[in-house]
């Protein structure tokens, strides 16, 4: 038991060190934004896929925003991917399509496998361009965002692009404020540090782009994955394509406003991430492919973030059990476990990362909310652990993975 505990603490310490490294890099290191200055070019044709499943509350906003971007009109086609919606999504899309002939071509999907990846896979029949951008329907792109996301594709090494997600409904309640902080740490520090250090910035599947030839080379969208973005990140990496992160390509999104919706979301992310860990982890670390040594290590650590939640719980259980059994003086180990716990789990960054991100974003008072992150931490660690357990039990229970759409809250279209 004690060796298990040592192993867990060692793993958690590695993650903590990684988070410190990322934070220090963002505060003091060389910042890479190589493509952000490309503002003049012979812009390529681009297809913008907007994934939409029952999005009547938000679809108007994104289609209107896309019609107002400064990308050459004749070079951009918007394809709303209406995936079996049962609300007014189809009607709204068709109305926009009629109002903007030649600029919007609707793809209505009425049957087939569920999930975003399956819908995108089917929608590829509409795509003829080399550059594909993907947005979820609750996003609101700014005027210059499309050019910013297309620019990295002038680099022949780039297969995927990821922009920064910025919550719009920040002030709604405690949860949205915590998610705002979490997103800030995750993008402003984690993603940009990975970009700076030439590690593995993660494709987020929205405010994102992919090169069609790279996508076809790796076999297209994986509709068996619950997180097609993570899956895409690692398949591109293994095939020698880079995913790059553009911190200044910011786009508003709507974050969950209720805890049950948040729990569902993070459980889906955890399951999808763990799917990718099982599918690519070993091959990424030891296999013969194009990833560099630093990408291999960072990639495996990135894949393992959601596995750390149950390991942390197990670590705490072992520490307490060993303490009460009087097995060994474990004060140091327990102290280390306590110190590193916040830094180790899942989708959210450590306190210091978030504090650094708030500073980089020039925000002030919201940093006062940091102590409340304990709440988010607790919810996440148990939700992710629950997701992992259900995944492990799935072969025994016969449970099927299914894709849960994140509920929307916007009230004014």
């Amino acid at each position, binding site marked *: 038991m004690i060796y298990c505990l040592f192993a867990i603490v060692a793993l958690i310490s590695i993650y903590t060190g990684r988070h410190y490294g990322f934070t220090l890099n963002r505060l003091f290191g060389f910042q*890479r934004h*190589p*493509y952000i*200055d*490309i*503002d*003049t*070019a*012979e*812009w*390529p*044709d681009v297809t913008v896929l907007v994934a939409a499943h029952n999005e009547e509350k938000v679809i108007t906003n994104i289609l209107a925003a896309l019609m107002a971007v*400064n990308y050459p009109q004749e070079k951009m086609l918007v394809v709303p991917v209406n995936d079996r919606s049962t609300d007014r999504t189809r009607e709204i899309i068709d109305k926009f399509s009629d109002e903007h002939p030649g600029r919007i071509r609707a793809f209505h999907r009425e049957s087939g496998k569920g999930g975003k990846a399956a819908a995108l896979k089917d929608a590829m029949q509409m795509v003829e361009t*080399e*550059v594909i951008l993907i947005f979820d329907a609750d996003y*609101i792109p*700014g*005027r*210059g*965002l499309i*050019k910013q996301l297309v*620019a990295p*594709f*002038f*680099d*022949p*090494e780039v297969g995927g692009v990821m922009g920064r997600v*910025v*919550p*719009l*409904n*920040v*002030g709604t309640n*405690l949860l949205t*404020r915590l998610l*705002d902080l979490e997103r*800030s740490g995750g993008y402003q520090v984690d993603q940009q540090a990975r970009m700076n250090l*030439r590690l593995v910035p993660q494709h987020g599947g929205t405010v994102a782009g992919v*090169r*069609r*030839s790279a996508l076809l080379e790796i076999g297209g969208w994986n509709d068996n994955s619950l997180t097609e973005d993570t899956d895409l990140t690692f398949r591109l990496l293994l095939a*020698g394509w880079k995913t790059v992160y553009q911190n200044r390509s*910011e*786009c*508003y999104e709507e974050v969950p406003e209720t805890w049950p919706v948040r729990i569902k979301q993070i459980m889906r992310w955890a399951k999808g991430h763990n799917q990718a860990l099982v599918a690519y982890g070993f091959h990424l670390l030891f296999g013969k492919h*194009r990833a*560099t040594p630093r990408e291999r290590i960072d990639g495996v650590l990135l894949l393992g973030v959601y596995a750390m939640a149950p390991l942390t719980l197990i670590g705490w259980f072992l520490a307490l059990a060993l303490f009460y059994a009087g097995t060994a003086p474990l004060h140091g180990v327990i102290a280390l476990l306590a110190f590193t716990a916040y830094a180790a789990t899942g989708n959210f960054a450590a306190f210091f990362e978030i504090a650094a991100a708030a500073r980089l*974003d020039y*925000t*002030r*008072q*919201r940093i*006062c*909310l*940091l*102590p*409340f992150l304990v709440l988010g931490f607790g919810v996440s660690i148990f939700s992710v652990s629950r997701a992992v357990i259900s995944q492990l039990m799935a072969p025994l229970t016969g449970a099927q993975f299914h894709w849960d759409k994140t509920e929307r809250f916007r009230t004014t279209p």
Partner: protein
Amino acid sequence: MLPLLPAIVELRLKRDAQPLNVIQQHAGEIRHFANGFRKVAVELQIPLRECIATGTSAAGKLPDGDEYLVLGRADNEPWMRGGKPLAICRVVVAAGIDVVLPDEMTFVKEIYAAGQLTGGKGSTYRAILGDQDVHLQRASKVTRWAHAVGAFRAEHDCDLYGRASSDQEIDLQSGCIFQRLNAPRISFGHPTAAVDRVKSVASDAIGDLPSSPAPIARTLHDENVDIPPGAVIPGSIVTRGKLRIGAGARVLGSAKSDKAMTVDAGAYVEGSLISSGTMHIGRNCRVGGPVVAEHGMVVDSGTQCGAIRTPTTVSAPTIEIEEGALVFGTLWARDEGRVVPKA
């Protein structure tokens, strides 16, 4: 509870609960400030017309409280006080006629010129908007931005901090420092004569290069790569080491290196050139797509980036560009760009 007190206060008062301010509209448009100042220029159109008609000058106040001076005739009187030349002009200046500004003078507010504007030697400007040509004489400085609807020319040793743009062309002579330039045609040390401008634009258009990231085969290398002189690479090339494109070689796609890139004289790249290290582009090269170096760039004389119908971006933290080079589109040196004399 005490550590939670600031958190509870913030949660209740929502002092910092607005979404992060994402720039949704101007999107980094180089002419953003010039377009904003044009509204001021529009407000001054009536006094401008009156001053031109009467051949006088007039002063007044803008709605925001800034004082302005409108010039309807070309003489030195506005720049003199008690028979001595002024050192500093503290008001917004709007000229309705062709104007020649005095030497060694500092203009702390914006300048608008409806006609040709010629700056004095060694003068400093906050910002200039010219509806025709703008010509800065030797050792001038622009601290914020300058935009010319006509041609923009800067003589030797001018410092252009911030943005300089033109709807026609920019020409900078050696010793000039720049940061962000944008024009259909940016030349160094050899301006197109105004009368030949249209003709020149037409001839530049010949041989436009495609630069879009078309699906084109690419080869990946983990080591340093030397493309031999005169070789033809039918697709794109990516290397994790250094890349040298030999003299007269042709790359029909794009080229990327994770370390330093050297492009020898006369090489031709249809797509983009991207280096995660430094980049040196030799003489008389042609590049169709964006040119990006993460750690500094040197561009030699005779090299042409982009074309009139296919403008592009050349970008690096520091850029040293030799007189005789030509860029169509944007030239962006985040830290500092410098025009050096032809060796």
